[in-house]
C-alpha cells in the first residue's frame, strides 16, 4: 500500500536510525522514468551502513547509471525494527532513489559478499513480495541476478536466482541489461528465452539450465546442461586493463555514519601471494594494477567530489603494489595540505618498510595490524603465508620506535595439519611481540603495550588449495579455543576469538550444494535473518532446520572431499585450475612454500583469462 510522507514520518520516528531509509543522499542518481528502458534495483542484503561501505556497489552503480537508458537504484535489507513496521502496516520493500517497490523493477540484483547473508537475501525477496523460488516466478516478476564472491559457489542459493554474473561485473551487467532491452523491444522476450540467451554470453550462469545428478553416497555425479548451445563450464569475466576500467567519480554520500565512510581507492585486483586458505587470493587472479599516475588523478578527483578527510588504499595486499613508493609520494604531495589522512589496510609484514612507516605515521593511523595467520613457522609454511618470525619482530619494532603501542595480530585456528604445538606458537609469538616492546629503547614509555590477538576459525572455501579439507568438528574447535585461552598468561595480550558455531554454519554454505535450498526456504519461513549479526545468529535454530530438512551439516563442513569428486563449484571456471590447487594442497602437506607471482610463475592457470599485467607468463 501507499502512504503519505506524514504517515511515514510516524514510522520513521519510531525506528532506530531513520536515515537508513530516507535516501536523498548527495550524488544519488535520479532519472526520468520516461527516458529509462531498464530499471535495475541493486540490493545489498544487509543493513544500510554495511551496504553503503561496499566498493563494488559504488563501481557497478556508476557502470549501470552511465548508460542513459538504464536506471540503477539501491536497496538494503531493513533492520528488524523496520521490518516489523513494514509488516504491521503492509509496506513493501522499496528502492532508495524512487521509493518504488522492488517488484516493479525489471531486474533485481543481489551482491553476495558472505554466505551468512543468504537468509537476508530470502528475507528481502519476501519483503518485496517476490516468490522465493525462481521456478515460481512468472513474467510479471523481475529477473533476479546474483554476483559477488559467493557466486563462485552459488549452488546453495541457486534455486532462488534466475541467473548469476560470474566475475567482474562492470562490463557484464550493462551487457546483461542491453540484451534485456533488446529482447523486450523486438518482442522476443520471455523469461525463458531471455535466460537461455544470456546463458550463451560469457560469465552468466543460469542454474535452472543445468541439472545436477548425485551418486548414492550423496556426492555430485554431474552437471548436465539442458541445451547443447550453452557452455558446460561458466568462465568468469575480468576487466583486462584496469587503467581503462570505468571509475565512479562521484560517490553517493551517506548522511548517517557508515562502516567505511571514506574514499576507497582501488589500487589493483588480484593477489601475487598464494595463501592456501584464501579464496580472494585465488578467484580475483590475474593481478591487474592501475598506474600510479592514474591513481593519483582518481584520488584527487574523489576527494574533490566528496570532501572526505580519509582515504583508504584498497587491494588484497597493499604493500605488494609494485609502485607503492611512487603512489604514496605523489599522494602525500597534496593530501597533507588538504588534511586528508591516508590509511593502508592489509599490510604484510615481509614487505612493510621503514620508509612506508614514516609516511603513514605522518598521517593518522590507528593501531597496526598484522596477519601471521599461524603460530609456528612450520604451519605458516604449510599455509604458504610466507612470513618469518624475524620479519614480524622487525616490523613491530619499527612500529614501536615510531611511537605505536598497540598491535593487532590475526590468526586462524583449525588449519589443516595443525597440532597443539602450533597453538602454543600463537601464545609464544604474542609474548615475543610484548617482549620486543620492552626491549625497544625508543618505545613510547607513556603508554603500556597492548597486543591483541584475534583468532578466527578456518573455513574451507571453494577455489582454494584447502577446498577439499574438512573443517574441525565444533567440539574440536571449541576445545582448541579453550586450550589457547589457557596458554595465554601474559596480561598485556588480549585474546579475541570468533564463535565457532558461526564458522561452522558458514562452512556448510561455503561448500554446500543445491540440496541446501529447502533449509534456506524453511529458515526464511521461520524468520531467520541477519545471521552475520551476533544478536540474531542462532546456531540451535540452524541445526533444527537442517535436521527437519534432512541435511547433515557435517557432510558439507566436516568431510574431506575426494580428490576426483565433482565439487558443487565445478560448474564455474575462475581461471585457476584444479590441478594447480591440488598441487598446492600436496605442497601444504609437505610444509613446502610456493613463491609469489612476483618471484616466479607457478602456472596457476589464471593467465588464460588474459588481462594486462606485469607478472603472468
Amino acid at each position, binding site marked *: 500500500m501507499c502512504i503519505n510522507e506524514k504517515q511515514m514520518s510516524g514510522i520513521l520516528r519510531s525506528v532506530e536510525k*531513520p536515515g537508513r531509509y*530516507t535516501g536523498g543522499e548527495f550524488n544519488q542518481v535520479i532519472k526520468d522514468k520516461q527516458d529509462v528502458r531498464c530499471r535495475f534495483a541493486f540490493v545489498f542484503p544487509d543493513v544500510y551502513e554495511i551496504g553503503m561501505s561496499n566498493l563494488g556497489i559504488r563501481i557497478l552503480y556508476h557502470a549501470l547509471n552511465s548508460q542513459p537508458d538504464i536506471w540503477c537504484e539501491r536497496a538494503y535489507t531493513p533492520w528488524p525494527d523496520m521490518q516489523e513496521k513494514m509488516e504491521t502496516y503492509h509496506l513493501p520493500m522499496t528502492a532508495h532513489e524512487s521509493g518504488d517497490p522492488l517488484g516493479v523493477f525489471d531486474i533485481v540484483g543481489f551482491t553476495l559478499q558472505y554466505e551468512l547473508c543468504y537468509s537476508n537475501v530470502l528475507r528481502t525477496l519476501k519483503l518485496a513480495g517476490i516468490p522465493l523460488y525462481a521456478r515460481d516466478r512468472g513474467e510479471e516478476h523481475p529477473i533476479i541476478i546474483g554476483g559477488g564472491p559467493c557466486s563462485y559457489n552459488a549452488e546453495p542459493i541457486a534455486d532462488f536466482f534466475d541467473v548469476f554474473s560470474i566475475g567482474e561485473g562492470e562490463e557484464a551487467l550493462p551487457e546483461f541489461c542491453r540484451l534485456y532491452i533488446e529482447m523486450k523491444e523486438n518482442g522476443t522476450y520471455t523469461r525463458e528465452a531471455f535466460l537461455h540467451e544470456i546463458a550463451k554470453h560469457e560469465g552468466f550462469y543460469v542454474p535452472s539450465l543445468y541439472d545436477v545428478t548425485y551418486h548414492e553416497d550423496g556426492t555430485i555425479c554431474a552437471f548436465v546442461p539442458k541445451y547443447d548451445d550453452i557452455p558446460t563450464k561458466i568462465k568468469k569475466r575480468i576487466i583486462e586493463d584496469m587503467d581503462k576500467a570505468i571509475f565512479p567519480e562521484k560517490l553517493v554520500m551517506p*548522511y*548517517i555514519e557508515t562502516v567505511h565512510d571514506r574514499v576507497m581507492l582501488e589500487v589493483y585486483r588480484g593477489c601475487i601471494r598464494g595463501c592456501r586458505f584464501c579464496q580472494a587470493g585465488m578467484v580475483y587472479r590475474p593481478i591487474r594494477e592501475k598506474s600510479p599516475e592514474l591513481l593519483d588523478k582518481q584520488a584527487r578527483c574523489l576527494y574533490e567530489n566528496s570532501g572526505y578527510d580519509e582515504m583508504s588504499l584498497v587491494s588484497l595486499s597493499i604493500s605488494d603494489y609494485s609502485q607503492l613508493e611512487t603512489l604514496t609520494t605523489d599522494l602525500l604531495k597534496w593530501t597533507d595540505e588538504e588534511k586528508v*589522512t591516508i590509511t593502508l589496510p592489509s599490510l604484510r609484514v615481509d614487505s612493510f618498510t621503514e620508509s612506508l612507516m614514516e609516511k603513514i605515521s605522518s598521517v593518522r593511523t590507528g593501531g597496526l595490524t598484522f596477519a601471521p595467520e599461524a603460530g609456528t613457522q612450520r604451519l605458516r609454511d604449510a599455509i604458504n603465508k610466507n612470513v618469518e618470525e624475524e620479519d614480524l619482530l622487525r616490523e613491530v619494532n619499527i612500529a614501536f620506535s615510531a611511537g605505536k603501542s598497540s598491535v593487532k595480530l590475526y590468526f586462524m585456528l583449525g588449519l589443516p595439519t595443525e597440532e597443539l604445538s602450533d597453538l602454543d606458537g600463537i601464545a609464544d609469538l604474542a609474548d615475543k611481540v610484548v617482549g620486543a616492546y620492552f626491549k625497544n629503547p625508543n618505545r613510547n614509555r607513556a603508554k603500556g603495550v597492548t597486543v591483541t590477538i584475534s583468532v578466527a576459525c578456518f573455513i574451507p572455501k571453494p577455489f582454494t588449495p584447502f577446498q577439499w579439507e574438512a573443517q574441525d568438528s565444533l567440539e574440536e574447535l571449541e576445545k582448541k579455543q579453550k586450550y589457547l585461552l589457557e596458554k595465554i598468561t601474559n596480561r598485556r595480550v588480549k585474546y579475541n576469538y570468533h564463535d565457532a558455531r558461526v564458522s561452522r554454519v558458514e562452512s556448510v554454505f561455503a561448500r554446500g550444494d543445491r540440496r541446501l535450498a529447502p533449509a534456506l526456504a524453511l529458515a526464511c519461513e521461520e524468520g531467520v535473518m541477519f545471521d552475520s549479526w551476533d544478536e540474531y545468529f542462532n546456531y540451535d535454530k540452524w541445526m533444527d532446520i537442517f535436521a527437519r530438512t534432512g541435511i547433515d551439516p557435517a557432510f558439507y563442513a566436516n568431510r574431506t572431499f575426494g580428490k576426483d569428486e565433482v565439487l558443487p563449484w565445478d560448474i564455474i571456471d575462475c581461471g585457476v585450475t584444479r590441478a594447480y590447487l591440488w598441487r598446492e594442497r600436496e605442497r601444504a602437506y609437505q610444509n613446502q612454500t610456493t613463491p609469489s607471482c612476483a618471484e616466479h610463475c607457478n602456472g596457476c592457470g589464471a593467465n588464460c583469462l588474459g588481462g594486462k599485467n606485469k607478472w603472468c607468463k
Partner: protein
Amino acid sequence: MVQMTFDGPLLEKPKTLRIRFQKTGALKYISHLDLMRTMTRVIARVHLPIKYTCGFHPIPHLVFSAPLPVGAESPHEFLDVAVLRELDPASVVPLLNAGLPAGLAVDAAYFAETKFQAIASAEYTIKIHTPGASADVAKYCGDVLSEKPITVLKHTKSGDKNVDVSPAILGVTSSFDEENGDIVLQICLRADSGSFLNPDYLLRYLSDQTGLLKGSPLEEWYTVTRTHLFDANGQDFV
C-alpha cells in the same frame, strides 16, 4: 559545479562566518552528528578557508546554534565557522548549495555580529493530525500544556529523573485548522544553553495525558517545525 577559489589575503584574526540554512524534508531525520559530517564535507569540497582544530588529526571547527530535535524541520538554522581569509560572504552561498541537497539549502552567509549565547528562546509549531480532532480538543491540548507543574522523565547524565519543565515553557497557544483537521500548537520554549527544552518532551507528556498519538501512524501523525529563534528582547536572532 561552480568553480571558485578563495585566495583573498590572510586575515590577522579569523572572522566568524555565519551560515543560515534550512533543515527540511528527508533531511529532518539526520542527527546532529550526521549534520556536522555533512557540512564538514561540503566545506572541504568548496575549499572554504576555515580554521581547523590543531592536533594530529585536524578537523574543521564548526559550531551550530541550538540543537534541533531529530524529525523536526526548521527554516532557519545557523552554523558558525572561523574563516582565515578575506572573502565575500555572499559568494559562499551558491558554492555550498551546489554541494548540498535541497533539504539543507543555505539561504544566507554573513559575518556574525552576535554570539549564539544571545539565543534565549525558540518557537515551535506542532501540528497534530488525529481522528476526532476539533476546536475543543485543540483548546484542551493547549490547556494541558499550560498547567503547572509539567513533570516529565528526563534523561540526564546521572540517570533518568522526573523534572518539572514548566518553567522552561514561555507560552502556549492552540488553534484548530478546519481545512486539514489539524490541531495546531504554537509553543515558545527557553533555548538558552542550560535551560534548553526539547519539544519532544512536551509531545510525550501531551500524549500521555490525553491519549493522543498512541494509535497507528497511518491514522495519527504530527509535525514539528522550529519557526523562530529569539534573543532576550524577543527579536529574531540573526
